[in-house]
């Protein structure tokens, strides 16, 4: 079974440019999460999709970030315009909620974003 995949693995852009990150969850996983780790700090939650609906977007830092999950499959996270503080590793995770409340989140390898 394929794991969570993310594209690109690394992106270097200039301040003010736009970048779109993509995440393909494990097939059949309705839950999709985006997280971000800024250098040396904790991994922080950004938002949570259940199928195509945004369940929780309380972690989104500001309106320069836009996440979509059309059709409830893959998701994209767009940063427009990018700022220096957006640099970090963006992780996507997916899970299959089995009703008991416990669901293991499987993480992708991350996209390392560098804003110059």
């Amino acid at each position: 079974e394929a794991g969570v995949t993310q594209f690109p693995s690394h992106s270097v852009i200039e301040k003010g440019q736009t970048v779109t990150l993509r995440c393909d969850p494990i097939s059949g996983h309705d839950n999709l999460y985006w997280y971000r780790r800024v250098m040396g700090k904790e991994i922080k939650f950004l938002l949570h999709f259940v199928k195509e609906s945004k369940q929780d977007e309380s972690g989104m830092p500001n309106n320069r970030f836009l996440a979509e999950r059309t059709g409830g499959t893959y998701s994209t996270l767009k940063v427009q315009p990018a700022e220096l503080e957006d640099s970090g590793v963006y992780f996507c995770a997916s899970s299959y909620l089995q009703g008991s409340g416990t669901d293991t989140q499987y993480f992708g390898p991350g996209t390392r974003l560098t804003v110059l």
Partner: protein
Amino acid sequence: QQQVKQSPQSLIVQKGGISIINCAYENTAFDYFPWYQQFPGKGPALLIAIRPDVSEKKEGRFTISFNKSAKQFSLHIMDSQPGDSATYFCAARRDTGRRALTFGSGTRLQVQP
């Protein structure tokens, strides 16, 4: 405000030794406490998890100790091996409501041969 505090930031252990990583949490609504292991170039992967109704959980060389009254939990790696060298994250989550994981800041473990 960081809800899950993790220490140490880095740890060097000799092969065969015991690695101990500690975490403390503040939100008593948390009811699931996983540890994730991350190798360079890979995403975090679930290593072991515990719920607050037990004080200890062991899986092979990995043990979680949980102290509900102190709001602390720790990961013990027995007989540490060079292949255990990785970054370890503790995390916490609720079973109801907000399902996102709240992570600690990570511990970079290096096991020397």
